[in-house]
């Protein structure tokens, strides 16, 4: 397999797995959000790589430029980034409320608190 040629896709897969692993395994609710962010960023990198055309420049019309990168995936991912920001902000806001109500952001501690009642 052509390793350097697919370098970006390897990075995407590694980031994706790291992110997903943190989301599943970590017991700290804040770190889960960090994992979620890494997971989302891997998808951003994936889309941006997809839109890049070899030798292409930024898609702005200029003299003597023939090859442009595909702007559509980049625009799409701008939308996805906005969604990511909204999700992160909401998740953190929820965590602030959870900390207020339960006095902890650790899954185990909260579960212990819940089962005692």
């Amino acid at each position, binding site marked *: 397999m052509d390793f350097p040629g697919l370098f970006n896709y390897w990075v995407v897969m590694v980031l994706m797995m790291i992110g997903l692993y943190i989301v599943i395994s970590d017991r700290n609710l804040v770190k889960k959000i960090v994992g*979620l962010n890494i997971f989302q960023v891997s998808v951003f990198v994936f889309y941006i790589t997809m839109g890049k055309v070899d030798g292409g420049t930024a898609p702005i019309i200029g003299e003597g430029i023939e090859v442009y990168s595909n702007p559509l995936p980049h625009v799409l991912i701008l939308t996805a980034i906005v969604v990511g920001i909204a*999700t992160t902000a909401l998740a953190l806001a929820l965590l602030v409320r959870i900390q207020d109500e*339960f006095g902890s952001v650790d899954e185990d501690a909260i579960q212990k608190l819940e089962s005692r009642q």
Partner: protein
Amino acid sequence: MISAQLPILQVLLPLLAAPLCAILRGRALPHALSVGTVLLSLLVTVGLLIRVESTGTISYAIGGWPPPIGIEYRVDQLSVIVLLIIQGVAAAVLVGGGASIVREIEATRAPLFYALFLLNLTGLTGMVLTGDLFNLFVFLEISSLSTYVLVALGTDRRALLAAYQYLVIGTVGATFYVIGVGLLYMMTGTLNMADLADRVAGVEESTTIRTAFAFMIIGIGVKLGMMPVHFWLPNAYARAPSVVSAFLAATSTKVAVYIMLRVVFEIFGVPMFLATHLSEIIIGLGILAMVVASVTAIFQDDVKRLLAYSSLAQIGYILFAFGLATEPGVTASVLHLFNHGLMKGALFLALAAVALRAGRTRRTDLDGLGQAMPLTMLGFTLAGLSLIGVPGTVGFISKWYLLEAAFDRDGFIIAAIILGSSLLAILYVWPLVERAYFRKRDPALPPVEEAPLPMLIGIWLLVGANLLFGVWPDLATGLAERSALLLLGGAR
């Protein structure tokens, strides 16, 4: 000229009303605005229904950019039947839920609550209408983000945990979906569903397309409450404010099923669905949900949670019929999607009335309510009978079509499982009815009275729909049959 603009108006009305609600103060104004908006939206849906029935599929190019370059809104029979259930339940829930919202949502948060509710409606409607995969993702996130907040507004502090759990798993699901869309775009260079259907045909065998398929199915499966990734659903439904539970239970998973239908049958096509053995997997998961979720429901103490597990079981029916990938199967799937929305909307709204008057929704809280809240509990009982599948209700029509679909594929064992699962439904619905009518309310508890009139209207609108479409099923079955034809007719 207004009839040409109907598809966009359907999305635009709640989208415009949402920020207005956020600016307004107090309870009365946002409530009036929201109710007005959902009623108008319902009218728009009826308009769309009439247009689709007379002229067939409607295509609307946003911004005047013709598809596949621009974003296209497509309305066909399948979209209309899902729109009907969304808008109908939204109207019934908002008209009926006023008192419940007053009780469960603080006054300062009320305008934002209505804004979020309308945004959620916008998202769900947009997902149904759009013909563009990425636009669909945007609407998916609009509805998801507003849902997370709505769930977090629940009175119990555990609502926060439920919302958090839903947020994490929901975001992972949505991101899986985006990965799938990205892979599809890599192979085909288009995002328009109709265009994709043509272009996927050429590259069907490639691993990239298969991977895209897998990612999208799992992503949508999370949103839909498919059995192994369903665990967010009972918590979210049980802890959200009662009105929100009623709306979510009746609509959000249905829209996810709708997307699954579109993605699987329109874009990838039946041959691929069968070749990847996804058909068997989904039938298996559906049957698993029917049995496991029904049994779990029997042992729940909180009635809201019980109904949430019952929802999972009902999704099992829908998935099973969908997995058959035959015409009777898809018809039954679409039909049950519609009918289940009606049943669960009515049940959860009646439960919102119980929560309003009795304070809580544990089993014991239902004791003696048959005398104290006769109209509410009669509605609850009728909707419960519909859930079981008693003749004269929509539940019976659903079961009939489901059995027909099973026999069509010689699935006698499956048919037996469906009937067995209906018996389980009796086991979890009947004790509730028995408590309401044959037990006395604990005299130590404060007495309860009948739910307020608007709430009764909301409940009985939905119960009435249960009975009406049970006696006169032509509209729903007709739409479902033509949807199945459209979906499978496009298959290669």
